[in-house]
C-alpha cells in the first residue's frame, strides 16, 4: 500500500491512527480526576507534539541516515518561523503561503549553510553548523531587531499592512491565522461521561502535515537515495570508489532536512503567530538532537517518540506544584503525606529538568537504541518465537558496552 513495503505500511498506518486519535489517546484520565494533571490532550501541546515530531523526523533524515550531526538545526526552524510571521504580517493570514515560504526560506539558508559546512565531516561539521546557528541567534536577538523584533519576538500587530486581508478585524482585534477561513485556534470539545476530548483545527492541520512528512520520510528511507545516504554513513571511501559523489547527496538531504525544520517553524508560527530568537539558540538545536537519539536515531518512528517524550516532560511535569502533590496524596496520613511529597518535590515543578536529565541517562544506559529499542524489547518479550527483523529498526541496536 502507498508504495510501501508490508512492514512500513503497518508502521505508517499505526502513525496515522495515533495522529488522528491523539485527542483520545492523550486524554486517558477523566477530567475531574486527580490524574487529569497527566492529560496532554489539549490543543497547544498536541500541536507541539506533532510539530516537533516533524522537526525530529527531518533531523533524523540527516543524522539517522548519514550520521552527520548538525548542531545548528534550530536555526532553520527559527528562520521558518520568522518567514511565516512576515508572511502573515505582509500578505495574508492564510497559513498556506506562510508555510510554503517558511520551507523555501529554510531551504535556501540550508543550501548556503550546508554547502559550506559539508566541506567538513564529523565534529568539525557539527561545530560549523553550531557556529552558523549561534550567529543567527545572536544577531536575531540584537542587530537584526528590525527584522526579528529582538528579544520580544516577531509578532502580529494591529497595524500590519496586510495585502490580502485587513489589518484588524471589525471589533478591533488582530486577525487569526486560518486555512481558507477555517481558524487555526478553533476547537470543539466533546464530553463523554467524565472525559472530555479536544478536537482542534490547528492540531488536525499539523497532524495531516506530519503524516505527509512521515510518509515522505519513509519513502526516502526506502529509496535509492536513502540507501546512498546510509552508504555515506557506512563507508564514504567505498562510495567514492564506486563512482558516486557523496557531496550532492549530503547537501540534498541537508536541504531536505532544513526544509522539514522550516516546515515545523512555519507550522509553529501558524498555530501561534510569534517567532522568538531563542528558537534558534543552541539549546533548541541540542533539543532536537536529544529527541532523535532518545527516540532512536535512524529509526522511522523513534524521533517522533523522542519529541513527544521531551515535550511531555517540559509541559506536564513543570506544572506539577506542591499543591497538586498534596491533592494526590491527601489520602495518606499527614506525616506520610508530607514525607512522600518531600521526596517527590525535587523532581517535579521547578525540578522538571532534573527528572529529564535522569531520564536521558537512564534511557541511554539501559536502552542504547533509544525508546524504539525499549518497544522492541517489549514486543520481543511478548512474542518470543517471532524474531523482529526490521531493516531500519535493527540498525538501532548498537553493540552493548563492555
Amino acid at each position, binding site marked *: 500500500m502507498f508504495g510501501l513495503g508490508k512492514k512500513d505500511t503497518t508502521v505508517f498506518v499505526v502513525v496515522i491512527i495515533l495522529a488522528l486519535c491523539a485527542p483520545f489517546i492523550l486524554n486517558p484520565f477523566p*477530567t475531574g480526576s486527580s490524574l487529569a494533571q497527566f492529560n496532554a490532550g489539549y490543543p497547544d*501541546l498536541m500541536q507541539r507534539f506533532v510539530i516537533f515530531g516533524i522537526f525530529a523526523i527531518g533531523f533524523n533524515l540527516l543524522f539517522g541516515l548519514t550520521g552527520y550531526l548538525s548542531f545548528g538545526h534550530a536555526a532553520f526552524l527559527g528562520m521558518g518561523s520568522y518567514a511565516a510571521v512576515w508572511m502573515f504580517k505582509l500578505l495574508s493570514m492564510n497559513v498556506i503561503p506562510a508555510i510554503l515560504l517558511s520551507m523555501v526560506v529554510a531551504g535556501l539558508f540550508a543550501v548556503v549553510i550546508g554547502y559550506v559546512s559539508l566541506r567538513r565531516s564529523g565534529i568539525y561539521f557539527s561545530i560549523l553548523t553550531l557556529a552558523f546557528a549561534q550567529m543567527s541567534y545572536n544577531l536575531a536577538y540584537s542587530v537584526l531587531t528590525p527584522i526579528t523584533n529582538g*528579544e520580544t519576538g516577531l509578532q502580529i500587530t494591529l497595524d500590519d499592512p496586510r495585502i490580502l486581508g485587513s489589518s484588524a478585524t471589525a471589533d478591533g482585534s*488582530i486577525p*487569526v491565522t486560518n486555512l481558507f477561513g477555517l481558524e487555526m485556534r478553533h476547537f*470543539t470539545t466533546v*464530553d463523554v461521561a467524565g472525559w472530555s476530548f479536544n478536537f482542534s483545527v490547528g492540531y488536525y492541520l499539523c497532524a495531516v502535515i506530519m503524516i505527509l512528512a512521515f510518509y515522505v520520510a519513509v519513502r526516502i528511507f526506502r529509496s535509492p537515495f536513502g540507501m546512498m545516504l546510509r552508504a555515506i554513513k557506512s563507508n564514504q571511501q567505498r562510495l567514492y570508489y564506486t563512482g558516486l559523489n557523496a557531496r550532492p547527496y549530503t547537501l540534498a538531504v541537508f536541504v531536505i532536512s532544513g526544509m522539514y525544520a522550516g516546515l515545523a517553524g512555519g507550522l509553529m508560527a501558524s498555530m501561534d503567530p510569534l517567532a522568538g530568537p531563542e528558537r534558534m539558540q543552541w539549546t533548541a538545536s541540542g533539543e532536537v538532537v536529544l529527541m532523535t537519539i532518545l527516540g532512536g536515531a535512524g529509526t522511522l518512528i523513534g524521533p517522533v517518540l523522542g519529541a513527544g517524550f521531551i515535550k511531555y516532560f517540559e509541559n506536564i511535569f513543570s506544572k506539577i506544584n506542591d499543591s497538586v502533590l498534596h491533592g494526590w496524596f491527601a489520602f495518606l496520613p499527614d506525616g506520610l503525606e508530607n514525607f512522600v511529597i518531600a521526596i517527590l518535590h525535587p523532581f517535579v515543578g521547578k525540578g522538571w529538568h532534573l527528572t529529564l536529565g535522569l531520564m536521558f541517562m537512564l534511557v541511554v544506559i539501559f536502552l542504547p537504541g533509544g525508546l524504539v529499542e525499549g518497544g522492541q524489547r517489549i514486543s520481543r518479550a511478548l512474542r518470543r518465537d517471532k524474531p523482529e527483523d526490521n531493516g531500519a529498526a535493527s540498525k538501532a541496536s548498537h553493540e552493548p558496552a563492555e
Partner: protein
Amino acid sequence: MSKSTLTRRGVLRTGAVAGAGVALPTIFTSSSASAFTNEPTGGSVTLGFNVPQTGPYADEGADELRAFELAVEHLNGGGDGGMMNTFSSKTLDGTGILGKKVEYVTGDTQTKSDAARASAKSMIEKDGAVMISGGSSSGVAVAVQGLCQEAGVIFMAGLTHSNDTTGKDKKANGFRHFFNAYMSAAALAPVLEKMYGKDRKAYHLTADYTWGWTQQESIQAATEAMGWETVNNVLTPLAQTDFSSYIAPVLNSGADVLVLNHYGGNMVNSLTNAVQFGLRDKQVNGKNFEIVVPLYSRLMARGAGENVKGIFGSTNWHWSLQDEGSKAFVQSFGTKYGFPPSQAAHTCYVQTLLYADAVQRAGSFNPCEVGAALEGFEFDGLGNGPTLYRADDHQCFKDVLVVRGKENPESEFDLLEVVEVTPRAQVEYAPDHPMFAGGNLGSCNPGA
C-alpha cells in the same frame, strides 16, 4: 464547527458531572457557547501563575510564586489577610472572588517567549485559567500579553520594566503594575544631579536587546536634560558573562560615571567586573568615579555582594518601606516564609489583589468588564502610595523609589536603603510620549 473560541473548562467540568449524574440519554454533550473564555461556572475560579522556574531567574520566579500563593491564601480567607486590610478598596472579604474559591495552576516560563507562551496556553486551554500573571522579563511579558489578548483572558504582568510593555506593545487585556524604564530615569536623574552634580560625563554599557535599549534611551534623555554629557554607549551581548573588555576602556574615555543598563546576571557580572577594575577608587576630571545601576533587583544585588555598596539605582518597591501596606505585606510574607519579599513578589501579590478586586467591583470575570474596572482605577494602601491604573496604556503610576547599596547591611536582606521616594507627578508622562509611541491598545477581547 461552530464559532471560534478557546476552551471553557469550567463549563465542561460541570457539564460532564451533570451529564454523568443525571444520565442524559446521550452521553455526548458538546460545549455550549459562553460569554467569554474560561467563564468559571463552578464553585471555584482558576488563576494561572506563569513564572520562571528554571534558568537564571528561577529564584526570582520562586519568590513570585510565594507571593501568588500568599495572595491566594489571603483571598480565600486564610492567613492574616496581608494587604487586603490596608487596600483602599474594601470589596475583598476573604471569600474568594465573587464567592468562588480561588485555585491556581503554575507553569515555567524558562524566561523564553516560546516556553512562556506554551505554558500560558496550557493554563488557558487545559486548566481553564481566567487570568495569567507573573514573569520576570519584558520579552516574556510582551509575548504572554499578546497571547492573552488573542485568547481573551486578562494578563496581569509581573516584573517587566521595558517601556514597550505598556508602550508600543501594549494590549487591551494586559495590565502592568511594575514601573518602567522611563520612570526609573525620571526618578533617578534628580537624585544623581543632587549627588554627583550637573557636570558629569556618562559612559553607558547596555545589554543589547530591547529592554536594554529603552532603559539606556530613557536614562540618557533624563541625564542629558539636566546637563550631563553622554560620552559613549556600548552595547554588550546578552550572553556575555565577562565584561572586562567592555569595562577596561571606560577610564580612558574621559567619562566619570558608568551607567550599567543591565539586569539580572548581566548586572551582577558587569558590576562585579567594574568594581574589580577599581573604577570606584579612581578620580577622573577631578571627581570621584561613580557607577549607576538604573534598575535594581535586591535578589540579584545579593549576587554582586559588597560591590553594590553606595551605588544608586531605582526599584519598584522595597521591604523596608514603612507605610501600612508594606508593613502588612512584609509581616505576612515574612511570617510565612522567614524572609522579606522581593519587589517581584510584591508586584505579583499586588497584581493578584488588584485583579480580584476589579472582578469583585465589576461583578463579573468577563475580561472586558474587569479591564474596564481596572482602567482609571485609583487606589492606595498597596505599598506604593496613591496609585493610578491609567486607562490610556494600562500602566500604573505611583511613586518611584531611588535606592542605594547600603554601606553596613545588618542582614543578608538588608542590602539597599531607600534614598528618596520620587513623587508620582515627577515620573508621569503623556500616553503619546515618543518613547511609548507606536502601539495601540486595541479593543478588549473576551474570547468568546
